[in-house]
């Protein structure tokens, strides 16, 4: 009876973890009715199964032979062993992930709050009145972005990048040019340009032998700030047409240019800029050219990555 009763759901995908043993002729203590398909979990003898969390999940009531299988000590041991194996694996991953991705360093860049994000966005579109661009230090480590508006963060660039992809999809959709793989293409293209920029700047910093504390992640953060202007431009272009797009893009381009120059000047031209002296000398001039080139590449890329979205 049990065999026929259980043969029916055999064709359906099994939701239980443990295979049900249909042919085990066990006399179940709680099995009053041989025609009963489902275990009566309210009665005492099957409490041993009912007490445990259901491994099959999704509310598929197991049969009595399952209860016998699960109550056996072997299954307990197997579950404990499996969970300890999972814990070991997690430990291994946690230990080794720090070698490839500097997780602790990344946490610094995401220590932001709403006030900081608001002020930073304002600074990105209107950097002309800000006076002090130095990052404050606290015993040799830079202060977290939450406490200093000049500190670079990765939250705004990451969010702006994702928003840019979505806005690009929106823009393409309003022009009937949308297809899902285009989104991936936009993302890939923007990421490729970002990578190329980072590599080019790192190469130039190496060639000009600049002794700077500008880390790679800092650089990614600074280069990611241009997505904010791009989003503004495309959105305005969608609302007000090409004129709006060009106006907002021009404004954001100039703002990003000024922002980058003022920020990078402190990082690349450290000694000269700290005194406020106009830079002289061949070495400083080369560094100034490098800063200007990096800052000038931002508006070019901002235009290049958005002009095909606004028709």
């Amino acid at each position, binding site marked *: 009876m049990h065999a026929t009763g259980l043969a029916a759901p055999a064709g359906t995908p099994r939701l239980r973890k443990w295979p049900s043993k249909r042919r085990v002729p066990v006399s179940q203590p709680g099995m009053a009715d041989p025609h009963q398909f489902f275990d009566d979990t309210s009665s005492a003898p099957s409490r041993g199964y009912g007490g445990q969390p259901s491994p099959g999940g999704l509310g598929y009531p197991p049969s009595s032979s399952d209860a016998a299988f699960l109550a056996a000590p072997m299954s307990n041991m197997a579950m404990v062993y499996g969970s300890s194996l999972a814990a070991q694996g997690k430990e291994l991953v946690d230990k080794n992930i720090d070698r490839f991705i500097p997780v602790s360093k990344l946490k610094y860049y995401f220590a932001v709050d709403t006030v900081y994000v608001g002020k930073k966005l304002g600074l990105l579109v209107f950097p002309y009145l800000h006076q002090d661009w130095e990052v404050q230090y606290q015993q040799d480590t830079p202060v977290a972005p939450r406490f200093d508006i000049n500190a670079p963060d990765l939250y705004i660039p990451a969010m702006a990048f994702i928003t840019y992809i979505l806005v690009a999809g929106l823009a393409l959709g309003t022009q009937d040019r949308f297809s899902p793989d285009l989104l991936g*293409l936009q993302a*890939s*293209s923007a990421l*490729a340009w970002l990578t*190329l920029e980072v590599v080019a700047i790192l190469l130039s910093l*190496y*060639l000009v*032998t600049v002794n700077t504390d500008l880390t790679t992640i800092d650089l990614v953060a600074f280069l990611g700030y241009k997505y904010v202007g791009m989003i503004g431009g495309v959105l305005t272009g969608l609302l007000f047409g090409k004129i709006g797009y060009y106006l907002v893009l021009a404004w954001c381009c100039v703002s990003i240019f000024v922002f980058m120059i003022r920020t990078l000047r402190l990082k690349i031209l450290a000694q000269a800029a700290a005194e406020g002296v106009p830079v002289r000398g061949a070495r400083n001039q080369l560094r100034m050219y490098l800063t200007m080139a990096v800052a000038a590449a931002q508006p070019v890329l901002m235009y290049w990555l958005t002009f*095909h979205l606004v028709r």
Partner: protein
Amino acid sequence: MAFTLYSLMQAALLCVNAIAVLHEERFLKNIGWGTDQGIGGFGEEPGIKSQLMNLIRSVRTVMRVPLIIVNSITIVLLLLFG
């Protein structure tokens, strides 16, 4: 926009190959870019030219074996998948 991460990787592989094939004796010495010709003493800044020569030499030294591996894989994959 056909500028994808894949084309960036291809370009990077080609560039690194190009740097790795610059022969020290036959070519670089003849144009004055050999690594034994660039030492300007212990001045404060090495200058762009000596930095470039150092970069070429280090790329040649470090990337020799990985380039062999990556090139072989690329050749096989391109032969199979076009």
